[in-house]
């Protein structure tokens, strides 16, 4: 077991190193740099050239690529993500501000997914082949094929514009400061509804199908037959004996899907004018803000690796049959 942990941590670090290398390469090899972008508007060619040189020196862009990478790495090891090329603010600060909007939506979305998908999946599995199963399976399958941004546009058009029910730009209304505490909470909640739904429905459909599939497999097991033979009520058999065992694969599914919700969605956040990580990434890419892009790539990769690792560990904790020995 400790050997397995060491193995995973080491291979994770290797992967992480590879990711920073690829990110750095992609960013550096591409034409155009932030200094050029920022001096493009200076009319006087000589001044423009001088400022350009100075900026390149300031950003360290005049050094060879491997030196730049080394500088970035040594700062990273000391826990410093650098300053944004765009507005000079600390990258960690910028990410910190964008983290909560994205994280809150991701957590809400995960909670909503589980709350809806688990009962749906169980009901469909218990009445396999029945009308509820057929209708819900078809609907969920169709829902799964709706791209999230298409759903976003439809919701904005019908709920946001036509019916004027829900706001769809940003996190708060313009008059947020004037509202009472309850009014502020209500206002925030209304802003969360549509974007959270867009993050949720696809996963929800997939999870429900997944729960149904797993439960159907577990129901065929011997111990479920034994539980039934003991004369336990069907409810107990399903919920205590079958369902709890079908949850195990769900853990690794969460581990696989959650990091991608967590990294935010560029299109959805842009569409809903949501000040999260996805939009920050989009703006950084447009502004050639190297330190912010690198930091975001790095953090996303860490999140992916950590969540899959945690999911794998949890897997073994819930299911003692899983062995980590090779």
């Amino acid at each position, binding site marked *: 077991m400790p050997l397995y942990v060491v193995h995973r941590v080491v*291979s994770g670090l*290797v*992967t992480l190193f*590879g*990711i920073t290398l*690829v*990110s750095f390469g*992609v*960013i550096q090899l*591409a*034409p*155009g740099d932030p200094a050029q972008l920022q001096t493009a508007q200076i009319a006087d060619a000589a001044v423009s050239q001088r400022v350009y040189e100075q900026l390149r020196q300031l950003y360290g862009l005049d050094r060879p690529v491997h030196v730049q990478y080394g500088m970035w790495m040594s700062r990273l090891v000391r826990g410093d993500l650098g300053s944004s090329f765009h507005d000079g603010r600390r990258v960690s600060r910028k990410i910190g501000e964008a983290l909560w909007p994205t994280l809150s939506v991701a957590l809400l979305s995960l909670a909503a997914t589980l709350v809806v998908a688990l009962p749906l999946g169980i009901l469909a599995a218990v009445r396999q082949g029945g009308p509820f199963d057929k209708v819900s399976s078809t609907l969920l*399958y*169709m829902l*799964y*094929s*709706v*791209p999230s*941004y*298409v759903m976003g*546009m*439809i919701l*904005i*058009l019908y709920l946001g*514009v*036509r019916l004027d029910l829900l706001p769809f730009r940003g996190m708060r209304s313009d008059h947020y400061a004037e509202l009472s505490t309850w009014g502020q909470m209500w206002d925030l909640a209304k802003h969360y509804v549509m974007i959270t739904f867009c993050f949720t429905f696809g996963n929800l459909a997939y999870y429900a*199908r*997944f729960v149904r*599939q797993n439960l159907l497999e577990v129901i065929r097991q011997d111990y479920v037959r034994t539980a039934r033979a003991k004369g336990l009520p069907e409810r107990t058999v399903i919920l205590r004996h079958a369902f709890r065992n079908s949850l195990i694969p769900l853990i690794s599914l969460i581990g696989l899907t959650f990091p*991608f919700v967590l*990294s935010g*969605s*560029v*299109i959805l956040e*842009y*569409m809903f004018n949501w000040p999260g990580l996805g939009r920050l*990434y*989009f703006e950084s*890419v*447009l502004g*050639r803000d190297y330190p912010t*892009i690198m930091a*975001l*790539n790095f953090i*996303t*990769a860490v999140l*992916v*690796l950590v969540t899959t690792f945690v999911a794998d560990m949890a897997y073994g904790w819930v299911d003692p049959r899983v062995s980590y020995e090779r």
Partner: protein
Amino acid sequence: MSAEPAARRPRRESRWRLTWRRFRAYRLGMAGLVIVVSLLLVALLAPLLANDQPILCRYDGSLYVPAVIDTLHNVPFTERVIQKRRPFRLATFDFKSEFDASRGDWALWTPVPFGPREIVSAPLLGPSATHWLGTDQSGRDVLSRMIHGAGVSMRVGFLSMGIAAVIGLVLGSIAGYAGKTIDIVISRFIEVVMCFPTFFLILAVLAWLPPRIENVMIVIGLTRWTGVARYARGEILRIRESDYAAAAKALGFSPARIILRHLLPNAMAPVMVSVTFGIAVSILIEAGLSWLGFGVQPPDSSWGTILRAGYENLFTAPHMIPPPCVAIFLAVLSFNLVGDALRDVIDPRLQETRA
């Protein structure tokens, strides 16, 4: 040598025929296939469906087939071989204003008689009898642009997954066949690419490349190959130990020949499934990128750019939102349906695996 008469030997069905026979039993898969084929037909025949020049016409005493030649130009390099006759070839020539019935001119028009770039009326008009889906912000016919957008989506879907399949098959089969250090290195590389949020990588690369549809295809292809590579590696690993692989090795065949002739054909099944799902994802990514302004550039049309135009004129011209939404949904749904059916047909053990 074989004494068995040909007539008594059971007729051997080819793998593809067998797959097709089983596939036909899946109603949903067939429904998906019908949509896929219709979308492909719309994409291929777009110039015959919506065009600012007619299919067949008489102009100033001679016959012309401009829309037919436009359609032929869908095939690469045909522009070098066949060209429209003058004056239809000229960019400044406007058949509709030159048309003169008194001279004996007549024309057989396409079902939608407007080109995707042709400015036909006032901007942002709602749906009407002439413009079924209304007009866009520049006064172009939305239906015509939707029809021509299908070509973009299909091309991106198939070509980018073609690139991805080649990369994935090469890397996956090398990793699976060679094993040991090479396998570890390639597997680690696959993991690195998988850990990368694909969309971020695509965005990062496209921010620097000139925004052209070819670049979108290449970048999607370069980032979406990991699923194919993993399946190919797994399958090759599995069948590498089989008797026929050992026999091929014993005959002294080169590794390349063993992989290409003996292993890959038997490893293609899960790869096909992965590619089908991949096409759906590529179509999705292309429309999303075009929505963000990184994909198809004006004046060309894509479902994503039409959707974006609808988003920007949300309060004045929302009629541009539902058509691309429906189109993107149908495209994604149909490829998913085909992929699911294909997976069940080829290998039921693969249930509930995707990407």
